[in-house]
């Protein structure tokens, strides 16, 4: 009710902008595909495609299950030992999440090929690729699970301790209590892994999302690519529904959690296992940094790499900055508009749908939606790459801001409504309260822009290249000093972002 009063009729133009940028491209792609049914049955008629689909499905399930198990064990150690209080840990976890997948790939390639003297043929295996994907998502999973553990009502644990031993309490109270968050992470990692083709392609592994990209690249037929993508989208939607059905139970816990300082002591064997999981996490976090730092070459190489990539860096910074700024300005009104509608869940799903689409399909949908409609000058501008980043980052940031609005007590806004005008409530109460999460949205969108590859690859204007496209292309020729130096620059940017986000997280907690 309070958001309905605040946003008023403005919600309709806001929904319209969101519709044009997020929903319309998907509709345009669908309309392009419908009349052409030639590729509609490829999935059923081609056994190679079917096998590839199921192989990728099993692969992504293994990555997500492995990530959740490892993360649960590491998080348990962090939580039991009280390490989550450390800002350094939060920063390191964020850092590992913000590092793009291709940097993880480059770093592990160095370790395996240069340090362990393995051949590329040996390294380019399913196991290595799955492991690197796990590395990409492990820190995100550990962060979320640790927060969930930290959010437990300790009185519930205290009661358990008066009735059973610590291991029983851990199995029957602690783990089931965080089950919704475990399911969210399982679904999210599955979605990210199932749609990713960058890591597998660098290790010569064919996956289903790469097949979709290849279909489009070979024929420039978006309809065939879409038909091919339908089974993938269906599975992604199932995973997405699992996430959404657990979000309310896992995140939107409004009641005050009791903190009374209860600790658990696990059996020795489990202590060893959880410590080992933590050690693996530390390795995952530090490997990219150490590997790139060792292989970056001289300072001269860095200078040369930076100077040779000036144009790409300039384009990336410009695209990412414009995208992040516009997303940050738009995400709060969109979130408020969603809070103000009756069928919020259904409408929200439409706006976060790009989360389940492979990046290449997003690129194709933008081509179908905007090419031939907009003035020619627009195609040589940064507009379409900016929209591509909107498609990839906005759903993620939108879910964060929606969660933040859900968690914030509306009583402050209602109290403001009694004494002040809507604009004053917005400027003096809502905006300051949500400022940390909005700043975090900016930083996340900016850094996610560096990670974006699949969609921008298709819509970047002629003569323009982004830093991630340049690095990805170079990686195909083998990781060189040059690429390492560029990766190190992105790593530095991610470090700064992680520190800012860590500080914002602390501030946000204080405001809740």
């Amino acid at each position, binding site marked *: 009710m309070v958001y309905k009063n605040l946003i008023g009729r403005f919600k309709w133009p806001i929904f319209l902008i969101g519709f044009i940028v997020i929903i319309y491209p998907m509709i345009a792609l669908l309309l392009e595909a419908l009349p052409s049914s030639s590729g509609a049955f490829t999935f059923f008629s081609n056994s190679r495609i079917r096998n590839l689909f199921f192989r990728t499905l099993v692969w992504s399930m293994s990555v997500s299950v492995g990530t959740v198990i490892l993360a649960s064990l590491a998080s348990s150690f962090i939580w039991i030992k009280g390490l989550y209080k450390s800002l350094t840990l939060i920063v390191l976890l964020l850092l590992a999440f913000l590092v793009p997948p291709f940097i993880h790939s480059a770093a592990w390639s160095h370790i395996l090929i240069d340090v362990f003297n393995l051949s590329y043929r040996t390294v380019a295996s399913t196991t290595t690729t799955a492991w690197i994907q796990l590395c990409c998502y492990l820190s995100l999973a550990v962060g979320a699970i640790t927060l969930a553990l930290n959010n437990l009502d300790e009185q519930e644990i*205290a009661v358990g301790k*008066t009735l*059973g*031993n610590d291991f029983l309490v851990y199995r029957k109270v602690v783990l089931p209590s965080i089950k919704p968050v475990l399911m969210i992470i399982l679904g999210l990692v599955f979605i990210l892994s199932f749609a990713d083709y960058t890591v597998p392609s660098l290790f010569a592994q064919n996956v289903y999302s790469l097949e979709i990209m290849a279909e489009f690249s070979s024929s420039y037929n978006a309809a065939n690519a879409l038909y091919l993508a339908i089974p993938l989208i269906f599975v992604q939607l199932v995973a997405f529904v699992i996430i959404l059905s657990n979000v309310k139970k896992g995140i939107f816990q409004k009641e005050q959690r009791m903190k009374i300082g209860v600790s658990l002591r696990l059996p020795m064997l489990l202590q060893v296992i959880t410590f080992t999981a933590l050690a693996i996490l530390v390795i995952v976090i530090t490997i990219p940094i150490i590997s790139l730092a060792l292989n970056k070459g001289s300072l001269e190489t860095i200078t040369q790499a930076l100077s040779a990539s000036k144009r790409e860096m300039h384009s990336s910074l410009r695209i990412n900055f414009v995208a992040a700024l516009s997303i940050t300005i738009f995400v709060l009104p969109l979130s408020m508009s969603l809070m103000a509608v009756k069928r919020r869940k259904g409408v929200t799903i439409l706006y976060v749908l790009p989360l389940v689409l492979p990046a290449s399909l997003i690129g194709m949908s933008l081509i179908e939606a905007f090419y031939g409609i907009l003035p020619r000058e627009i195609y040589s501008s940064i507009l379409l790459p900016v929209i591509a980043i909107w498609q990839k980052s906005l759903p993620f940031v939108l879910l964060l801001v929606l969660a933040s609005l859900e968690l914030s007590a509306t009583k402050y806004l209602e109290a403001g409504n009694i004494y002040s005008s809507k604009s004053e409530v917005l400027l003096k109460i809502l905006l300051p309260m949500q400022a940390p999460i909005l700043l975090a949205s900016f930083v996340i969108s900016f850094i996610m822009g560096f990670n974006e590859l699949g969609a921008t690859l298709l819509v970047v204007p002629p003569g323009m290249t982004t830093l991630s496209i340049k690095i990805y292309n170079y990686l195909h020729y083998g990781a060189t000093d040059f690429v390492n130096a560029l990766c190190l620059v992105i790593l530095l940017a991610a470090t700064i972002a992680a520190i800012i986000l860590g500080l914002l997280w602390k501030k946000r907690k204080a405001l809740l």
Partner: protein
Amino acid sequence: MEKEKGSIMIKLTNINKEYDNKKILVDINLEVQSDSIVGIMGDSGSGKTTLLRTISGLTRPDYGIISIDNVVVEHKKIYVEPYLRNVGFIFQDATLWPHMTVKRNIEFGLSKLSKDRSEIRTIEVMKQTEVIDFASKYPHQISGGQAKRVALARALAPNPRYLLLDEPLTNLDEKAKSMLLDLLIKVREDNECTYIYVSHQKEEIKYLGSVIYKLEDGRVFKDA
């Protein structure tokens, strides 16, 4: 251990506890006799909850000795885990685990029994505390008064000798309060359980017919 009526079963000697340089419990000496009801009164922040948590083992004192049934359970390096102290604990909030049904909540402390014996004991204690009608419901589906009865059933299920009650009537309406008080009296007669009952309401403690102690600034006094 066989308990003799009137013998000292819980003994606290020189219990001290500090939080953030603030003394919460100061030289507490307390003796609780078997089959008795000990009421502890005190204002908010006087240390009532900390005292119960120390007895149960959820909080360790800075120093002092606690013995239960003539066995030292807390002294320097000696520390007996809460679930091995033979005490039940009822908190201010019912604190039922939201992911378990009422029955599963009650069964939790019976994991050492066989399935059949656990089932028999669960049904027995559910009947006793009048919660059997909503055994398959989840905590969010029952009222505050019902939740408190489930918390009582859960604490009683392992048949503890001592029940520590931390303001159990908080957030209940008058009708639910008197129902729970009567149930506590009835249950104690059936189970021969010793109660340590903490509250800031003297009427509640008097209703149970208990020996009353006062806790002020971390020190315990017998109420005149």
